[in-house]
């Protein structure tokens, strides 16, 4: 039985002026398979849609083409119309005769419009409908990490009703922030006790994720804790492994490595200085303190905050003279501008230098030489205490987790590639998210934002307990697939795996959930085994064939 195709032509309320719709209708109606051509001047209006439904019910077409505006606006509208009229939304194709024809050309473009409709007709003729299914998912979420962002995420997810497991490599939660909460500007104790009282949250420490596979809604994860192997199913994974800092290896004359073995005790990290200031455990208050900032790492949002806080505290508590050597003071973090003003107000001197300061150590005394660009002269200062520049680094194990979950790292080795389409907390692998310090230079307020957006995205994914998916939209032909692994290697969403099918043959199986329908696999398959419904080779080629037929 031949496919019956109904074509609806719409002039968009008269916005399409340079197409002769009568002539178009006449030429379209001659295309084999086209059983009806209707003219409308407002198909997307309520009346137009009603009319369309009734025409489809009268004519019983198998497929529908709408020629009018860009599918960006109309596609979902008309797919709904089709479904109301009892057809599948997949029986539809649009001919964009407005944005890509009428509006970009002068004069009569009826000929081109007819061609565009023909292209749409030839594609729609070959469309197959797909079955939609609701796949059950696990509502449990695994949060990897044991710091502020991990605990915060777990609490937030638990509050919206999702059961959470926290797996952290540390002995106890919050170990990194313990005792230095105000340095990290978080109230870890309160959060920890909230976790303890939350029956929705299970804490596994010290625990390491050792393997993971599967896809959104259905990840199989193995966690190792003290020799014990725990295997669980999770619906979503949140990576919240934080960052570590390294003292930057500034070249210092007569000093092996700053922060390394043998480096003087009067070179300290931000956290060390914070502790000194906090517990007052210093025999003699340093008269002069120098801070180094952003001379080798531009990503210094967090170190800038630490510097400002510590500099103010040192001025206020110890009355030390404080110099901060930096290229720029980066104040785009929450509250940083205010802190910077406060620091200046209390007498901290910021020395803006255009090249990295030169350091020398003589008899335990540290001198810093730098060019002050505003003074236009070199300055030299001897200090009792030097706070070394800190560079943020991804913690150990970051790469292993990235491999496990098939996600990419950015150029500095943190989670989250610099791709705008991934949103700040998502990945190319659906169902895996990251929050907080593990995606780079973040401070507390931004971590809080992350936590909220991740919770929202996971809620959207898992809360209903099912994920709706079209079945086999992209599929490898059992007979043709030679299991060459090419598609598995190229899939950016790691949606393909090798699997034994009914006849015992191992072939590429594409997950309906993880697949994001890009078609890279279909284009590269050397056996032409992968079929991508809607963009099958024959569907693409049919459109090419239809071009210029008239």
């Amino acid at each position, binding site marked *: 039985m031949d496919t019956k195709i109904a074509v609806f032509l719409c002039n968009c309320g008269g916005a399409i002026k340079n197409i002769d719709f009568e002539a178009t209708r006449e030429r379209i109606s001659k295309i084999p398979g086209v059983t009806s051509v209707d003219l409308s001047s407002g198909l997307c209006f309520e009346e137009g849609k009603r009319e369309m439904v009734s025409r489809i019910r009268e004519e019983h077409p198998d497929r529908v083409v709408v020629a009018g505006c860009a599918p960006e606006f109309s596609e979902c509208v008309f797919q709904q119309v089709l479904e109301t009229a009892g057809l599948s939304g997949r029986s539809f194709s649009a001919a964009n005769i407005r944005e890509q024809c009428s*509006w970009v050309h002068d004069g009569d473009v009826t000929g081109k419009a007819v061609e565009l409709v023909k292209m749409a007709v030839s594609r729609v003729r070959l469309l197959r409908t797909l079955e939609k299914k609701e796949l059950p998912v696990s509502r449990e979420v695994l949060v990897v990490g044991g710091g502020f962002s991990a605990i915060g995420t777990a609490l937030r997810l638990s509050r919206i009703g999702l059961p959470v497991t926290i797996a952290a490599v540390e002995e106890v939660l919050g170990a990194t922030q313990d005792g230095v909460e105000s340095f990290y500007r978080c109230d870890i104790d309160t959060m920890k006790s909230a976790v303890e009282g939350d029956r929705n949250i299970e804490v596994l420490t010290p625990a390491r994720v050792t393997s993971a596979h599967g896809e959104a809604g259905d990840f199989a994860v193995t966690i190792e804790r003290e020799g014990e192997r725990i295997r669980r199913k999770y619906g979503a994974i949140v990576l919240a492994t934080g960052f570590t800092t390294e003292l930057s290896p500034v070249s210092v004359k007569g000093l092996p490595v700053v922060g390394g073995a043998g480096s003087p005790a009067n070179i300290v990290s931000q956290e060390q200085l914070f502790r000194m200031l906090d517990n007052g455990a210093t025999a003699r208050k340093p008269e002069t303190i120098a801070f180094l900032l952003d001379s080798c790492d531009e990503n210094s949002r967090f170190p800038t905050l630490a510097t400002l806080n510590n500099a103010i505290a040192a001025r206020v508590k110890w009355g030390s003279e404080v110099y901060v050597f930096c290229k720029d003071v980066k104040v785009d973090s929450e509250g940083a501008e205010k802190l910077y003003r406060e620091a200046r107000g209390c007498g901290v001197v910021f020395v803006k230098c255009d090249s990295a300061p030169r350091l020398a150590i003589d008899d335990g005394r540290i001198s810093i030489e730098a060019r002050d660009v505003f003074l236009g002269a070199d300055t030299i200062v001897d200090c009792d205490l030097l706070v070394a520049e800190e560079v943020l680094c991804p913690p150990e194990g970051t790469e292993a987790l990235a491999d496990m979950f098939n996600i990419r790292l950015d150029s500095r080795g943190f989670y989250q590639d610099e791709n705008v389409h991934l949103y700040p907390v998502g990945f190319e692998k659906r169902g895996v998210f990251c929050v907080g310090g593990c995606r780079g230079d973040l401070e507390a307020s931004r971590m809080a934002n992350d936590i909220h957006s991740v919770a929202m995205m996971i809620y959207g994914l898992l809360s209903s307990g099912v994920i709706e998916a079209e079945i086999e939209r992209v599929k490898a032909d059992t007979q043709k697939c030679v299991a060459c692994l090419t598609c598995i290697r190229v899939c950016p969403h790691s949606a393909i795996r090798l699997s034994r099918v009914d006849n015992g043959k191992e072939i590429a199986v594409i997950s309906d959930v993880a697949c994001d329908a*890009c078609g890279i696999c279909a284009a590269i398959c050397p056996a032409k085994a992968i079929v991508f419904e809607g963009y099958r080779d024959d569907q693409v080629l049919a459109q090419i064939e239809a*071009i210029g037929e008239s």
Partner: protein
Amino acid sequence: MKGRVIAFCCEHSAYPAADLAGRLRLHYSESLRIIRVPCAGRVDVIHMLKAFEKGARAVLVLGCEDGACHHITGNTRARERVEQCQVLLDEARLDGRSVAMHNISPNAPQKFVRIADELVNAKEQSREAI
């Protein structure tokens, strides 16, 4: 379809850019035919070759900007395929320059029009030269 220029447009970038060109009433050659694809990475070498077999004057593959591909590697794969296709055309003693890959963002209608016009004009000139 003698003389048509076929543009495979990624629905995340070039296709909306083309729509925006329409909304801004920017004009380009009438010979351009747009085929919507979910990602430039879907475009296969055979699609380009068949277009030439059908008489296309030129083929464009338009994908997302570098580093901003909706499918991470789709645009770079598309570029590799276009380069492969250029070699195949040259081998067949046709002009490999008739197929080109460009990166474009969805909010760059002017760039879309410029790319389309440049290719159409270049091909027109080379036809005259022959």
